[in-house]
């Protein structure tokens, strides 16, 4: 296989880290919404925690994206 083609395939594979990030972010917001529906008065206090969870879940996926960018342009 040519190096260039292998690089492209590798970058595509590295992007599959975003699957996990998608599942994680969906989980966080889904659970936040179902909790907020049950107890709306407690929801605003947990908004900061929601954002922290979102940021942490997203970061792992973005590491994969970063690897893909390094493979392509590094």
């Amino acid at each position, binding site marked *: 296989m040519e190096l260039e083609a292998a690089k492209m395939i590798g970058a595509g594979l590295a992007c599959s880290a975003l699957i996990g990030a998608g599942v994680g972010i969906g989980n966080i917001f889904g659970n936040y919404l179902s909790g907020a529906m049950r107890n709306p008065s407690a929801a605003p206090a947990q908004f*900061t925690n929601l*954002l*922290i969870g979102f*940021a942490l879940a997203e*970061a792992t996926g*973005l*590491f994969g*994206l*970063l690897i893909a960018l390094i493979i392509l342009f590094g």
Partner: protein
Amino acid sequence: MAQFEIKRLIPIHLFGVDASFTNASLYMVIAVVLITSFLIFAMGRRSLVPSRFQSMAELSYEYIANMVRENLGEEGMKYFPWVFTIFMFILTLNLLGLIPHTFTVTSHIIVTFAFAAMVWITVTLIGFARHGVGYLRLFVPAGIPIWLMPIIIPIELISYLIRPISHSVRLFANMMAGHTMLKVFAGFVVGLGLIGGWAPLAFLVAFTGLEFLVAFLQALIFTVLTCIYLNDALHMHH
């Protein structure tokens, strides 16, 4: 892509270092001028019943002040100007980039890494200044069995050292991915022409709205994480 290119506007070379005034520097200057004039103009004619601009300024001030108070307590309020500056600067840079034909400074990893490294170094210095060598206890969580220590301490150490990377990559990747996606869909609009181009155009409009949310959210997340790291340094809860 053309929108991510850095151009030298005024070439300056100091002692062999390329310190040119680029379009990135220009947009940072614009952001600082915008924030300063907005806050001065909005709070210039203070009244008990606020005008629109005054309530915008008060809203952003109160929002960040509440966040600092919740995370750091009343004693953390002396770090409020720093946190507020970070928030306003990143938010303005993100929003400036959404205007067509402008340059997004935060879509460059070196800029966001400089922000994150500044936060990380400041937080570490504050931690050592307040707790001395005892700040190293941050890496030893309380109440875990002794035989777990050889595993836990390296993990805690790595997660602390990787903070500037995850902190900067989050902002950079979000801004860059968003702008790249807009560019790709703009290419679809041109490619499909007058007949089929309306569908991606409608998506483009909706996605631009989403990008405004992302621009605000990423500035907010950067600020929230700064508060959390600062809280680790001020009150070590381990």
